[in-house]
């Protein structure tokens, strides 16, 4: 039998690209629409929940009025109810998205899909949009339905309504993009469900925050929450696209924590090349060979790590510039009277009193060093769990204070340059570079999750970032901090007293 051979209709590449995403998305949607286990809760939550909320609002209004004669409770409660009516159906999107890849993998239907000429981005988009669309439509219908059953005079103003719709969209996107990442990185639906807490817990906290904000009537804060959701979405979508990898999806069969492999990987990234000004280390006199380890570390490896970390270093420097600006802004807003800055009354006693303040470190080299090491280690820890952002914010805090204080000092009639040169710079010239380098490496620890280095998995990228952090922290940061602590403890106070004390 002769099979027909028909030519593929030529189409512009981008049209085909979009159409392929569309077909993938539409197939997924059709699949959801045929699954009563998805449809039933969506319909129920969309159509019955608004009635329930309406009843609750009415009951609370009456009860508050009867008990305390409180009026206007509804105006505060309604936006909150609206928020819940929108959120409950979109929570289904989490379940759908968690299943997106790992569910197909379990049902063995993923491989034929991965064998099609679709790019990773097309697969990611098709699946993500499909998981988002149905619950989002249900959420919007739920909101519309709730508004319909409310008396006209009780309906919220258009701006509040817009905020609530945008918040609903933002949360749905965060949940779906987070869940798609989980789904593409796990090997079973069970594992994906367990990891879903990383999406559910922050969402729960966010809902609580939104509820409090709405009950307190602080609608302005909702814009900040929206901004936060926007940033989180950009990060999660970028992370999802970077981490989405058909090879990983298909190649990984079991989620096993193999400590020996982890240690081997860490070691591979931790060790550095012995080097001695181009001479083969083995040809050096035996007594000098140890030097090649140190020259290799300081003259080859540390510069390499810094070059590898240049985007993070740039980000930290920009953050510091931002911190100076924030300090300046705050100084304008919260200007102190000149008598609050009695620099000419600084005595040795002032430094002793400063040490007595519980949250400040003891002004001894060891006390200062301990405090700085603790802060930068904390920055690494926080950076890991916040895509690097909290590490940068932690370093911004003291810079904001310095900028604020410098402005106040200037307005109080002192020379700001002298202030900076005496109070900050003696130890700052050592401490600040150390803090910038450590923070940049801490930022890398978190940023690796969003953008692992090319050719590396997230795990390997993170191991490299950790090895770089440990190496440079021990070899460069701690020695610099130790020197800075000694200077801060002995030289800075003496200099301050010499310049300012009468």
């Amino acid at each position, binding site marked *: 039998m002769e099979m027909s051979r028909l030519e*593929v209709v030529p189409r512009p590449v981008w049209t085909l690209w979009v159409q392929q995403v569309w077909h993938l998305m539409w197939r997924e949607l059709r699949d959801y629409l045929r699954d009563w286990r998805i449809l039933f809760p969506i319909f129920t939550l969309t159509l019955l929940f608004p009635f329930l909320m309406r009843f609750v609002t009415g009951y609370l209004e009456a009860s508050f009025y009867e008990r305390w004669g409180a009026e206007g409770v509804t105006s505060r409660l309604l936006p909150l109810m609206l928020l819940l009516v929108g959120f409950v159906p979109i929570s289904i999107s989490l379940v759908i998205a968690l299943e997106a890849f790992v569910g197909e993998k379990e049902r063995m239907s993923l491989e034929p899909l991965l064998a099609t000429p679709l790019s990773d981005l097309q697969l990611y988009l098709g699946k993500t949009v499909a998981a988002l669309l149905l619950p989002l439509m249900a959420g919007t219908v739920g909101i519309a339905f709730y508004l319909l059953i409310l008396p006209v005079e009780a309906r919220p103003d258009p701006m509040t309504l817009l905020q609530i719709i945008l918040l609903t969209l933002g949360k749905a996107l965060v949940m779906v993009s987070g869940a798609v990442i989980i789904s593409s990185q796990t090997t079973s639906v069970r594992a994906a469900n367990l990891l879903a807490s990383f999406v559910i817990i922050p969402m729960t906290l966010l809902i609580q925050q939104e509820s409090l904000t709405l009950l307190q009537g602080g609608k302005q804060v909702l814009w900040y929450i929206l901004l936060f959701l926007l940033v989180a979405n950009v990060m999660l979508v970028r992370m999802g696209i970077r981490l989405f990898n058909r090879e990983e999806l298909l190649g990984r069969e079991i989620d096993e924590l193999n400590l020996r492999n982890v240690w081997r990987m860490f070691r591979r990234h931790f060790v550095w090349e012995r080097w001695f000004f181009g001479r083969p280390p083995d040809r050096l006199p035996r007594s000098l060979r140890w030097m090649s380890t140190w020259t290799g570390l300081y003259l080859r490896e540390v510069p390499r790590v810094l070059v590898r970390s240049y985007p993070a270093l740039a980000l930290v420097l920009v953050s510091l510039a931002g911190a100076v600006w924030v300090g300046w802004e705050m100084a304008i807003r919260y200007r102190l009277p000149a008598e609050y800055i009695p620099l000419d009354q600084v005595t040795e006693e002032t430094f002793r009193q400063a040490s007595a303040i519980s949250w400040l470190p003891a002004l001894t080299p060891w006390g200062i060093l301990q405090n700085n090491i603790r802060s930068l280690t904390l920055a690494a820890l926080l950076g890991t769990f916040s895509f690097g952002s909290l590490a940068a914010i932690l370093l911004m805090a003291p810079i904001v204070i310095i900028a604020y204080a410098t402005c106040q000092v200037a307005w109080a009639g002192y020379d700001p340059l002298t202030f900076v040169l005496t109070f900050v710079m003696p130890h700052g010239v050592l401490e600040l570079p150390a803090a910038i380098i450590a923070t940049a490496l801490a930022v890398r620890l978190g940023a690796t999750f969003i953008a692992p280095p090319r050719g590396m998995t997230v795990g390997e990228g993170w191991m490299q970032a950790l090895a770089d952090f440990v190496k440079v922290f021990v070899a460069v940061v701690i020695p610099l901090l130790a020197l800075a602590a000694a200077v801060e403890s002995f030289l800075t106070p003496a200099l301050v007293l010499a310049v300012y004390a009468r």
Partner: protein
Amino acid sequence: MIQTENLTKRFNDFTAVNGINLTVRPGRILALLGPNGAGKTTTVRMLAAILMPTEGRAVIAGYDTRQDPIAVRRQVGLLTEQPGLYLRMYGGEYLEFFGRLYGLDPETCQQRAREWLDRFVMPEAWGRRIGEYSKGMRQKLALVRALLHDPPVLLLDEPTSAMDPHSAKLVRDAILSLRDERRTILVCTHNLTEAELIADEIAIIRRGQIVALGTPAELKRQLLGPPLMELRLAASTDGARPLVARWAPVLEEGPNWIRYRAETPEAVNPAILRSLAEADIPVVTLSEVPRSLEAVYLRVVEG
């Protein structure tokens, strides 16, 4: 055409495929045989540009899997180890979906899908939900999915598994006709009879390495020695034995049959027959003792 050079795939410390060199020309079928876990599926996934090689390269229909994976996927029809179907979809809907992903317009897609379904004697599959299909139907539908975009290269993992003998024959015939259309075909199978029936060449893979490669006849000769011939006589073998032994070593003997190994059957067999005729010993049959691919396979796999 499929060409690989030192194709290697490692997963952390485990080497799944180790330096495979293969060439399959258009119009040829290569059967890839090997025990479970030998690296067949990983090889196929690399050829389909789903997995990237750790070392080496694979060029499929002129495209390098690493440099142009999307073009490779467009050229390849992949039948996966598991059919991997969407059970809630209807057969026609499913094929249309995959056809559209390959850039086919709906009419072409439908026409080709229906033609293939007719050819596999399952036209009713178009309007039936896949969840209701038998195992064999599911396998055939997955095969149609792989053929829908008319690919020049076919990678078929266990194409007739779960099929009844009639369906299996239909599929084998289809594979042979696809070969006649000068498509390049690689078949992974555990069914050695089938491999022998359809394959022009056979590659046996063990622990990620190709340990034997050649036509079925070449492999048999290489691994089991020269062909074994059986001579059946209408009389006792007493007179025939020394005549046969003059030309070839006699291995076994019965009351009226003799088995000998013929290094060059085309020269030895006529000579033996001539000698027997001259000695007036009546010959009933002279034939090659069938040697199965299974024997070759077991010899290779068991080392």
